[in-house]
């Protein structure tokens, strides 16, 4: 029976995977372009940008349909889900990929490692992220995760003449392989406990109360959380993050920090809220603990960092903790907050790494805190933009960071989890310290202490149009989502998977 099922080709439903097809197709087109004739990679970037926008249009149309006329549905024998959750996150991946493409062009030209294949890999990776967002089957989750991860391993090591970049790629590959193995083991255990890898079917089995092997299911659940915990860089599975973020080319980090996290969370949300919803009382305490150590760990460890990229790496860990908080609350408001947080985070982190990439100069030489001394006098606009993103990440009202944290905490308060709420707010205050410290360096510390030699003045940073567009977009949305967040909150509310 199973074999017959597998052999009969499922009916094609191209519409269900249209955004993914467009991204993958664009990637293939870029490779073909390179095969035919090597042109200025800027053209490849242009094609990639157009591809992400087109994919976004399809995702938007999907979103419009599932939230208005058509009901959520499954496609390809339950492999793919087309619902508010998938369409929302597919759309967010498009944004992350679009920003990733825009921020890459200038950087790779400056570093002299500008090759068109970069954009193909980026799009394949984004395609994997989108499949992850839509995956309704554990096998699909795994395949999507591998697609996005393998591309990211290569991208991390893109600057092959730089030992730091090589190290980042190797570390990411090794630890990523471990986490994939753990995830796969968890999937196997879940299959053993339920006899299916289809998440919707799994939920049905549990609701019919015929769990034959609760031990296997619980063990599998823990392994899946651990495996995905690596991808979202939750403490204590975060060890790779600082090294990889510090070593990898900065635009890659910007894309990785936003996209891979979306995908990891998409998988986690889908598995826990659909497949393992019946085990909420088992995974919720786990997530509460994970969220607490992640928020505190990320915030406290970031204080010790002297390198801005490492500091932002720990900050992204702390953000993962805040997003986890929303899921851990187990309320619709919390999940809505977490989804809103993901969007706000994409803009903030992409923008911040975009500025850091510009300020690091050729060869990524200037990334330590001391290099940021008196940056406001040397690069007033970039310093102000970076300070703005830092304040947004610290959660100052008027920025999307505040609304995001607030929305998440609303869910936690709704669940009356006062300990988690208090720890969360304290962690956000702790994290404000290291964001502020960078602002202090940029605005309040003279370039050199008295008696030191004045360093040679660097030429002003030049701006490429694509970079300008990316930074304007990120700043705009960080403000807009901070002052008038209603629209996105409503969207996120329709995408929570909780009904």
């Amino acid at each position, binding site marked *: 029976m199973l074999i017959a099922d597998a052999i009969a080709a499922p009916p094609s439903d191209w519409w269900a995977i249209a955004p993914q097809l467009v991204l993958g197709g664009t990637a293939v087109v870029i490779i073909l372009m390179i095969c035919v004739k090597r042109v200025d990679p800027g053209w490849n970037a242009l094609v990639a940008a157009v591809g992400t926008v087109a994919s976004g249009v399809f995702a938007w149309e999907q979103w419009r349909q599932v939230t208005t006329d058509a009901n959520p549905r499954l496609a390809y024998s339950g492999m793919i889900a087309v619902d508010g959750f998938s369409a929302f996150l597919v759309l967010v991946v498009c944004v992350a990929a679009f920003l990733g493409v825009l921020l890459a062009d200038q950087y790779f030209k400056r570093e002299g490692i500008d090759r068109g294949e970069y954009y193909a890999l980026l799009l394949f990776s984004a395609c994997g992220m989108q499949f992850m967002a839509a995956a309704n089957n554990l096998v699909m989750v795994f395949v999507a995760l591998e697609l996005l991860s393998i591309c990211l391993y290569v991208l991390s090591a893109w600057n092959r003449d730089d030992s730091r970049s090589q190290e980042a790629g190797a570390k990411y590959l090794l630890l990523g392989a471990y986490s994939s193995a753990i995830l796969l083991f968890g999937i196997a255990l879940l299959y053993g406990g339920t006899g299916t890898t289809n998440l919707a079917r799994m939920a049905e089995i549990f609701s019919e109360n015929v769990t034959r092997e609760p031990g296997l299911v619980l063990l599998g659940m823990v392994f899946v959380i651990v495996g995905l915990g690596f991808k979202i860089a939750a403490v204590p599975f975060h060890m790779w993050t600082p090294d990889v973020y510090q070593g990898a080319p900065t635009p890659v980090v910007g894309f990785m920090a936003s996209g891979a996290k979306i995908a990891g969370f998409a998988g986690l949300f889908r598995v826990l809220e659909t497949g393992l919803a019946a085990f909420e009382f088992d995974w919720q305490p786990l997530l509460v603990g994970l969220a607490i150590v992640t928020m505190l760990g990320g915030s406290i460890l970031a204080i010790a960092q002297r390198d801005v990229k490492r500091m932002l790496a720990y900050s992204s860990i702390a953000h993962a903790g805040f997003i986890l908080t929303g899921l851990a609350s187990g309320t619709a408001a919390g999940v*809505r907050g977490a989804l809103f947080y993901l969007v706000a985070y994409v803009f903030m982190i992409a923008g911040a790494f975009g500025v850091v990439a510009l300020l690091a100069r050729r060869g990524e030489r200037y990334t330590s805190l001391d290099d940021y001394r008196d940056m406001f006098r040397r690069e007033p606009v970039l310093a102000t933009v970076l300070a703005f993103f830092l*304040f947004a990440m610290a959660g*100052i*009202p*008027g920025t999307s960071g*505040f609304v995001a944290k*607030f*929305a998440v*905490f*609303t869910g936690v*308060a*709704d669940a*009356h989890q*006062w300990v988690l*709420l*208090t720890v969360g*707010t*304290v962690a*956000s*205050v702790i994290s*404000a*310290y290291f964001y*502020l*410290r960078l602002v*202090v360096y940029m*605005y*309040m*510390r003279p370039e050199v202490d008295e008696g030191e030699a004045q360093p040679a003045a660097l030429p002003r940073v030049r701006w490429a149009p694509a970079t300008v567009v990316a930074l304007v977009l990120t700043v705009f949305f960080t403000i807009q989502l901070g002052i008038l*967040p*209603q629209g996105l*909150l*409503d969207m996120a*509310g329709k995408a929570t998977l909780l009904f």
Partner: protein
Amino acid sequence: MDWFDSWALSLAVFIPVVGALVILAIPKAREYQIKVVGLVASIAALIVGIGILSRWNWDDGGYQFEVNKGWLSAIRSNYHIALDGISLPLFILTLVIVVLCIIYSWNHWPEPRSPKMLLFLILLLETGMLGTFVSLDLILFFVFFEVTLLPMYFIIGIWGGEQRIYASIKFFLFTLFGSAFMLVGFLALFFLSEPHTFDIVELSANGGAAAAVISSTAGLWIFAGLFLGFAIKVPMFPLHTWLPDAHTQAPTVGSVILAAILLKLGTYGFVRIALPILPQAAHSWAPWIGLLAVIGIIYGSLCCLAQTDLKRLIAFSSVGHMGFVMLGIATLTPVGINAAIFGMIAHGVVTGMLFFVAGSIHERYHTRDMSRLGGMLSSIPRMGGVFVLVAFASLGLPALAGFPGEFTSMLASFEPAGGLSQSLFRGFMIAAAVGTVLTAGYMLYMLQRVAQGEVPGEYAGHHLHDIEAPEYVSWTPLIVLTVALGIFPSLVFNVTNSSVVPMFEQIFHHAIGG
């Protein structure tokens, strides 16, 4: 004039931020234009404020100029703003102080000189402060409350003295820490009260009936969270340690705004939010608040006696004066709250003025070390005279602004709200009275060192400028207010009382019950 009634508050709140954005668009080199735009924006806001005063219904203790529009319907937070007798004086004071600060700065900008940035930050700060005073929604309140943080952080951190980085980060983290717990308290209020709402009016109606469903233990915890947020801002002993650093390091206008307005956000929060929404919890906490307030009065005064730095002394005197305000609040009586609001206004006018003069002294002597100052009355007699007048107002001389608030506050603690220990509060009153003596002591000691005596040898050959034109313009209104509030305290009491009495009727009838 209907449009004015519904738009006036929004205009006053947001004109400064529009001015700030215009300033941002003007190139740095065109300094004169920048200054004019800054001044015009602040004066425009003040004119709207005067318009509000002219259309104010003085007999009505309820909310006026009310606007209630949807804002974040997803989290049920509204753009709900209005003024009543409690917030009106603070609102007007803010408008006035900012204009005066900009005039004062006209010809002397702190180093590193950048009028563009400083004015931008001051105007942004003004929007935050005004917004806090008009907000009637907890989230809106919180947003404005936090918006004031960043500009002040930059003002201290960029234009401050030697220890500016330490002082600015301390200021920022202390306040953020408090407001984090305040936010937890707000969220708890929302989810535990029935119906779920962030609206301050709804929450405090009928003596906090909406929040009355909250268990008394939870109420105590929520009040503790709000207390942390507000008490750090006030600041109350033992959470005050950021204040002397921030004040001493901040440039003159920063100190003035900090002392005159920002500290009041904390006490205002108690009166507007903590007390009316959670009267029972306030009742349980009141003895402790009173105790901390009295410790603050005594401790602040003793610290003042030990200071050598003029600005640091004035900063510690704020701890003492705000202690009187908190003592008034802790009595939970209409008299006490009236005293508290009067105390806020008086402290804003008087201490703001003290910081102005201290800044001008520092500019002339290039030191704030009181052992090196002296003889102001003979070298720069006019400024010396002003300084003496304001110092007397600060030590609570009758017929000057400092007296009515502190006197009434002690009067209120003679007869605290029903259920509070009379003997305890009378003990507080005696301690506070001792505090006024200490206050007189350190103020006179300060005058002796700074204003009287011989001009120190190191300044013998120098010509020191007496009061200059911008100083005249910016100080005159405050001096007039100092005298006027002392002679006619009813100027403020009449306005506040009309709103305080109805508020307390609700609390008494519904919650505390006599």
